[in-house]
């Protein structure tokens, strides 16, 4: 029954004082949002950022207006919070699994000698994602985790449709190349 109600309606219900509506929203989006942050930031900051983003949603309930989809709004908040985190830490976006990625060469290719250590293809793919350039990684995660289309990715990241589409295409290309190299070896 909860699936029948749109995110926007649930958010509007929460704005009207229905705390249960927020819980449904949270259950729908908590996993993807958590991983969206996890794939871009260090593990130690993930929970703090995750909590901040949801508190921002809670505190913005009085000013919430249905201009775009709830998902677009939520990930726009998340993206801004992550950028702010980078600025505060005076850091560049880094890969979360730095220890594992330290075994990956700097030219964005997984070395064959690490193949034995990462037999699982899923883990290899996660490592490959972590090794993507920031814009491509962001576009990939918005598509795969948030389930956004190209147009929504463009709106969320504040770029044109073509740019968003291009970033997404390069992200898949990069991942494919990395995985092909592994398979070749």
């Amino acid at each position, binding site marked *: 029954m909860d699936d029948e109600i749109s995110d926007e309606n649930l958010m509007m219900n*929460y704005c009207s*004082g*229905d*705390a249960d509506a*927020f*819980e449904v929203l*949270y259950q729908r989006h*908590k*996993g993807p949002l*958590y*991983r969206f942050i*996890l794939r871009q930031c260090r593990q130690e900051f993930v*929970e703090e950022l*995750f*909590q901040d983003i*949801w*508190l921002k949603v*809670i*505190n913005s*309930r*009085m000013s919430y207006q249905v201009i775009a989809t709830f998902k677009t709004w939520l990930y726009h908040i998340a993206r801004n919070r992550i950028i702010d985190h980078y600025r505060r830490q005076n850091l560049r976006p880094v890969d979360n699994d730095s220890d594992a990625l330290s075994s990956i060469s700097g030219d964005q290719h997984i070395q064959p000698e690490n193949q034995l250590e990462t037999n699982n*293809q*899923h*883990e290899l*793919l*996660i490592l490959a*994602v972590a090794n993507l350039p920031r814009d491509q990684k962001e576009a990939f995660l918005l*598509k*795969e985790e948030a389930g956004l289309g190209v147009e929504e990715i463009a709106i969320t990241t504040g770029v044109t449709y073509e740019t968003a589409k291009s970033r997404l295409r390069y992200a*898949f290309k990069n*991942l*494919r190349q990395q*995985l092909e190299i592994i398979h070749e070896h």
Partner: protein
Amino acid sequence: MSTDDEQISSLYHQADQPGPSKMLDDAILTASQDAVNKPATTRGPFSGSWPAAASIAAVIVITIILVPILKQEEPQQELMQTARDESKPPELTGEPELNAYRATETKKKTMGTPAPASGPAMLLEEDLFVDDLAVPAASSISSRAARAPATGETSFTEKKEHLESGISATERSSMQAADSAPFAIHTPEMWEVKISRLIEQGDVKAAKAEIEKLNKQYPKYQINRSLLEKLDSSYE
């Protein structure tokens, strides 16, 4: 999206799907419920508890500063208040009272005596008879009056008339008022004069009453014998 891309997407979703901890879930859901139960209120610059704290601090500071200063100034204020009370004119509320006060003040200036209203009358009366008091007590008024032409002295009546002629009507009325006042103070000699006057007027009862009063007031005073003889003869 090509087939390769779909395979990558599928592979990605087959990987581990980590999520937030239960504790984090509870914290966020509790925050969402609290936000609904306590509606967001805009806090103004004067909301909160700081005005109360600031007020208490201000009262303490003022107390610490002002109390020693006030204690130092207290004796000075008492002195100033005393001086003010002494120099303060009587409180006059009505117009008639004010006019009366002004008239009294003017009179004081004219007479040159700052004493109270009963004072000048008493003094004038004493002055009036001062020469008379110099006469030996034994001598009677009548003998004095008879002796006067022989000695060349002005008689008591003449002297009184002379003195009274030099007194203004205002002063005379004031003297009369003082004379009739119940609190007027008489010397024994003044009393004798008054008794003599009453005997001459034929008011023997009043004269006798005055003698009794005189005796009561001045028990040791020896009343002029001639005055008593005069009173006795009046009885007859």
